[in-house]
């Protein structure tokens, strides 16, 4: 498929309309000098990825992403930023002073991944064919059946991980009282 054929499909305009803001937002997440702005640009990137999931007919995952990430994780981030009093407002030392090694590493990762995608695409073929699942919504019931049949043990394990994270988070973040404070608390 040539580029002119690719761009002629209207669905690819929708793809570009989400992918380009997503990449720009991702770049701002890692370069922004304001922590709160970085967290809010993450919202934009994740919302765009939820849109891509809908394009790929994964509606349930898209809404889980919106609920869990945008609804909970980003709010948690904002709380974390406020509690640690991470510099709110413009701040210059949010990143290291020498950043070129990180840029070289990132470019290296991208080059290797891109080369791998090309190599696998030429070996396997079919990467340039239209995606078969597009336009056919995945029934959420299929996912539910997967969770309670084939993926039951991973499902339970993930539930356990969430419980452990909950207890661990509380244990880590609670303030241990000194014996004197504890006595005072007991008297009150």
């Amino acid at each position: 498929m040539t580029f002119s054929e690719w761009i002629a499909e209207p669905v690819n305009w929708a793809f570009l309309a989400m992918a380009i803001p997503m990449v720009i937002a991702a770049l701002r997440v890692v370069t922004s000098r304001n922590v709160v702005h970085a967290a809010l640009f993450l919202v934009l990137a994740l919302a765009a990825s939820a849109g891509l999931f809908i394009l790929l007919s994964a509606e349930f995952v898209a809404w889980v992403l919106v609920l869990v990430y945008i609804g909970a994780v980003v709010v948690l981030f904002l709380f974390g930023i406020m509690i640690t009093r991470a510099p709110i407002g413009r701040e210059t030392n949010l990143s290291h002073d020498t950043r070129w090694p990180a840029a070289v590493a990132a470019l290296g990762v991208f080059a290797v991944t891109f080369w791998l995608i090309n190599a696998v695409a030429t070996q396997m073929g079919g990467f340039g064919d239209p995606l078969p699942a597009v336009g056919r919504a995945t029934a959420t019931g299929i996912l539910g059946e997967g969770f309670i049949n084939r993926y039951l043990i991973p499902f339970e394990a993930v539930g356990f991980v969430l419980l452990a994270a909950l207890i661990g988070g509380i244990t880590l973040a609670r303030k241990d009282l000194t014996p004197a404070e504890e006595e005072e608390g007991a008297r009150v």
Partner: protein
Amino acid sequence: MVLTQFLVLGALLFSIGVYGLLSRRNAVTVLLAVELMLAAVNINLIAFEAFWNTAAAHGQIFAIFVITIAAAEVGIGLAIILLVFRNRASGNIDQLDLMRW
């Protein structure tokens, strides 16, 4: 839509995440970069699911697992950052050199 465009987007997003992970000094922003990398992985999973078009939607199930684990990771990560901040009055990871030789 073809598979390659999603794979390249995922690779781009993952590389941006790697850059953020290595270049950021503030611990909260490092976690934000990790979230970007996980989002890139999710795009790959969903795109491959649309490519193979399996009846049981394995790729989507794995994407939901990734989202769940990411939520747990953020909770624990922020609790640790909070603890570090309480003990050292700083959220910068390059000042956590207590165990450095």
